[in-house]
């Protein structure tokens, strides 16, 4: 069909840019490794500097893969939400999923001072943090699903998501008021967002969640396209609305929940990437948009992580700050240039 030819070139370009960004992300950091040596190393060759080899394989490759998973996952969940809620401003943050994860993390880190007698495991490490924030995001997700079955109107659901966000934010600020400085700092570091420091097991777990999310999205591609007409039209076209909404919400929750659990709340990627993708691929067809958004999200997060690492310095900036600085102007630019955000 004519369609696949039209989009072959942008896809090829996107794939090449993704590869380039991946290698660039590996080669730059507090220690700059020459581009050529990085390439040689990942292609299985030997490079002279043993420590470079070690840095690339044990530190930077897991980090780059995490960045790809995080960027792709957040962007895809943003795309799903924008179509499901028929709202160009929808994203993982809006449904309250990220705030749910924040509340889980906050309760684990800072709540232990408040409710120390109830806490069974005092050990705060990466795994328990991931578990706590997963539980938090899934509880909010379950609440959203429970409300979604009662409320037919998706606009109302969106506002309810925002309210969940406000409630969790309020609880987090109460917790931070009563907690001690150490714990507060620990929480803030989690909230900064980071794609480094994931163990092999965590990376595998994250990949599984993202993979399931992608599969569910691919299953829903046809229904997502029908939903572009609105729910009543979609139903008249034979879409099983309840089932479709359920699958899309589960996919969204898995993608956004898992990412936030392991990498912290990362802002704006989920909202901005689908819009940026629509600038290149001038289409609304989810068959094209789903893979394009995955690639674009991965590229953007690799670049954001690159900036956050402040190449050739020993400082690392909060990833969340970089994505906001990149993402927020994009949204403003889209609103001003295009007058209205369309999806």
């Amino acid at each position, binding site marked *: 069909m004519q369609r696949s030819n039209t989009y072959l070139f942008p896809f090829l370009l996107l794939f090449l840019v993704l590869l380039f960004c991946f290698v660039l992300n590996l080669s730059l950091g507090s220690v700059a490794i020459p581009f050529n040596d990085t390439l040689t190393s990942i292609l299985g060759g030997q490079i002279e500097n043993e420590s470079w080899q070690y840095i690339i394989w044990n530190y930077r490759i897991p980090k780059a893969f995490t960045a790809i998973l995080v960027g792709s996952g957040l962007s895809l969940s943003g795309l799903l939400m924008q179509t499901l809620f028929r709202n160009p401003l929808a994203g993982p943050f809006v449904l309250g999923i990220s705030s749910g994860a924040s509340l889980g993390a906050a309760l684990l880190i800072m709540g232990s001072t408040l409710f120390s007698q109830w806490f069974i495991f005092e050990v705060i490490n990466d795994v328990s943090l991931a578990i706590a924030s997963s539980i938090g995001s899934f509880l909010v997700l379950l609440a959203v699903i429970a409300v979604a079955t009662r409320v037919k109107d998706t606009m109302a659901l969106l506002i309810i998501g925002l309210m969940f966000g406000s409630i969790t934010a309020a609880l987090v600020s109460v917790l931070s008021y009563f907690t001690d400085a150490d714990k507060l700092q620990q929480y803030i570091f989690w909230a900064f967002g980071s794609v480094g420091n994931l163990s092999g097991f965590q990376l595998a777990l994250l990949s599984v969640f993202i993979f399931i999310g992608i599969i569910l999205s691919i299953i829903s*591609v046809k229904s997502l396209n029908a939903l572009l007409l609105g729910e009543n039209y979609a139903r008249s*076209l034979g*879409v099983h609305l309840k089932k479709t909404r359920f699958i899309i919400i589960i996919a969204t929750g898995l993608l956004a929940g898992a990412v936030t659990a392991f990498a912290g709340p990362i802002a704006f990627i989920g909202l901005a990437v689908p819009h940026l993708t629509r600038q290149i691929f001038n289409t609304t067809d989810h068959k094209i948009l789903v893979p394009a958004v995955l690639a674009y999200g991965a590229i953007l997060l690799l670049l954001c992580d690159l900036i956050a690492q402040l190449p050739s310095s020993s400082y690392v900036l909060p990833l969340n700050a970089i994505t906001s600085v990149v993402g927020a102007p994009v949204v403003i630019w889209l609103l001003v240039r295009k007058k209205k955000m369309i999806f």
Partner: protein
Amino acid sequence: MSIGYTSRKEKTIIANHINFGLKKGELGAIVGINGIGKSTLLRTLGRVQPKLSGSILINNTPIEALKSDALATLVSVVLTEPIASKNLTVLQLVSLGRHPYTNWIGTLSADDQSKILKAIKILELEHLQHNKCYELSDGQLQKVMIARALAQDTEIILLDEPTTHLDLYHKVHILKLLQRIAHETKKVVLYTTHEIDLAIQLCDKMFVIKRDNNNFGAPCELIESKSFEDLFPKDTITFNPESGSFKINK
């Protein structure tokens, strides 16, 4: 059949004693004053919302017995609500009409393609097919939505106020087109409207909803049985049976 809305506590009945049927190849209109339940009736017929009581039959099958994908191959709808994404191109929007027939990921077969192009041709939208929906006028968008319903290739097409916001020429144009579709392709086309005089001139059958009694029949039968006389309060508007039109009392 009665139609209306149910909330958790009560049923709000909008209209009662609805009883009519259309045959293949007939153009039908549902007429009545504002708020009488024309759109509710049409949406109920298309299973966009549930009925309160009674039965709706398509080829003697109750519509509740049909699965949603089976119903989608029998009934297509054109609603008054705006489409969610105006970023769709005309071609993509019309293609979505083939949704009930495509495979799991929505690949269009050669047959699908030809039906889409045929629908675009009937509505004379060839020159607009690569335009985005937000670039279209109301009348053009209405034609695109009708093309989408045609591409869905159903025996029944239901349209909710397809001629509002259009000037007289375009109203007549759309209605004549619906008439042609009904007569030539042997489909049942049913629409709601305020333009009773136009419906009288073009429709095969009309269903007149009034507060206490509803009438159904061919326009000339309805004129003879004086169904239109008490449609509006008599002190403001009277019906002229000879010309089949309404006059304002001065």
